């Protein structure tokens, strides 16, 4: 492991590393947004029907057992497109926590609360928007947070087919073990991926603090 000291390597490759950090951030955000859109829709469509909700969770759970490396390879061999593969696979893995938490959260409203709202003449739309969603929000948010953490990790692994994000540093290092600067690349991969995950986590802590209805705070 010869080569430059880490600090020096970093300042020489500053532009590239910053670019990759940005890419990693953006792709993670796209994927979580996609997963959130699909997952919340699925949850809203199925939460009322126990069997459908379980089926929904069950199917996504089986997909979750499949290693991300295999899933990425599979989708890539079929689509042949790097970006499509990356975003669709990562979003797929991000789906499970979001969908499951949203379903559980939406089902969680106390029947007495629902009855009280009905008695007050609250309609279906307002029931969802003003009663169920606020009650489910902390749980949904927790699902989004887990999904984001997963996403950051899988985007890194996805670099083996798609040259996006920080994972490429890790794969460069693995492909050239023993040559100059692989140590720096591996170290940069570990540090910056962890940093991206931490930043997302911090964002979620702040969002949770400011968006949780006061009564539902835990």
């Amino acid at each position, binding site marked *: *492991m010869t080569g430059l000291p880490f600090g020096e390597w970093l300042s020489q490759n500053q532009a590239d590393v910053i670019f990759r950090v940005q890419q990693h951030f953006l792709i993670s955000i796209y994927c979580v947004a996609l997963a959130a859109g699909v997952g919340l829709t699925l949850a809203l469509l199925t939460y009322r029907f126990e069997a459908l909700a*379980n089926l929904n*969770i*069950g199917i996504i*759970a*089986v997909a*979750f*057992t*499949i*290693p*991300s*490396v*295999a*899933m990425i*390879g*599979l989708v*890539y*061999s*079929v689509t*042949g497109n790097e970006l499509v593969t990356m975003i669709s696979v990562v979003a797929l893995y991000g789906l499970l*926590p979001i969908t*499951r*938490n949203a379903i*559980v*959260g939406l089902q*969680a409203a106390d029947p007495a609360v629902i009855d009280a709202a009905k008695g007050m003449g609250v309609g279906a739309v307002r029931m969802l928007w003003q009663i169920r969603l606020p009650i489910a929000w902390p*749980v949904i948010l*927790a*699902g989004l*947070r*887990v999904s984001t*953490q*997963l996403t*950051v*990790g899988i985007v*890194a*692994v996805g*670099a*083996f*087919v798609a040259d996006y994000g920080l*994972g490429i*540093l*890790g*794969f460069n*290092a*693995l*492909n050239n*073990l023993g040559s100059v600067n*692989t*140590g720096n*690349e*591996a*170290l940069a*991969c*570990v*540090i910056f*991926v*962890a940093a991206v*995950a*931490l930043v997302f986590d911090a964002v979620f802590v702040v969002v949770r603090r400011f968006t949780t209805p006061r009564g539902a705070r835990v």
Partner: protein
Amino acid sequence: MSAATTEPSTDLQDELEGTGGGARPSTGSSIFAVRDLGLPLTVAVVLAALYFYIQDRELDNIEVNLLNVDTLIRFTIEHIYLSFTIAVLVILIAVPLGVLVTRPRTKRVAPLVLAFANFGQAAPSLGLIALVGLFYTGFWPVVAVITAYAILSVLRNTIAGLQQVDRGVLDAAKGMGMSPAAVLLRVELPLAVPIIGAGARTALILAVATVPLGSFLGAGGLGQNLFAAIKTDRAVGILGIAVIIACLALLLDWFAGILQRWATPRGIR
């Protein structure tokens, strides 16, 4: 946590606990039920379809090498061997550690141990393997990294499993004159098996999924073929190997689920 698929999760670890499609507690008391045949049959159909699909195609030399049946079988066995070695090591390390941090005398170190294990999991496995690869390569270094990486799932579940044992049951056991060691071995641990088992399955799945990266360090397994197929840009190769890895993960999880049921005391099955 045994009902992992229906409980909301609040962090990544909880999430990983829910990996197995069959992680829900079984309702029947038998170890093996007819519906357990569903998964292996599906996998068999998928693999047969894959076989005929590949048979039908004109393969070039590289593809023939990538998809050579004998090599694939050898790599699959390596993959299973690596994954099980990791899972067994994880259990051997994490369960005693979990027991240790739940004993009254050593309770204080629990947050420390968990913080350490959490820290290990925050780093990306890809980067960790690359870092280790700078110094060591081969079977055992890869086993060591992935074991360290997967310990948290079993450790947390061991702690949770031991803590959820009813205090009344423990008192009853003590009242019967059982020694602390007997209470642990004959009451606490057996009652915690479903939860510890869920953690062990998570560790196994994590191992199967991470072992391909270990092929860069010469640890063997199906990752060798997968990454070779990607480097040579052979879509058929990628497809075939990816499907095999996916089927392997599903089968191992299925098998681990049956093992878990077998290890669970009949009364709480």
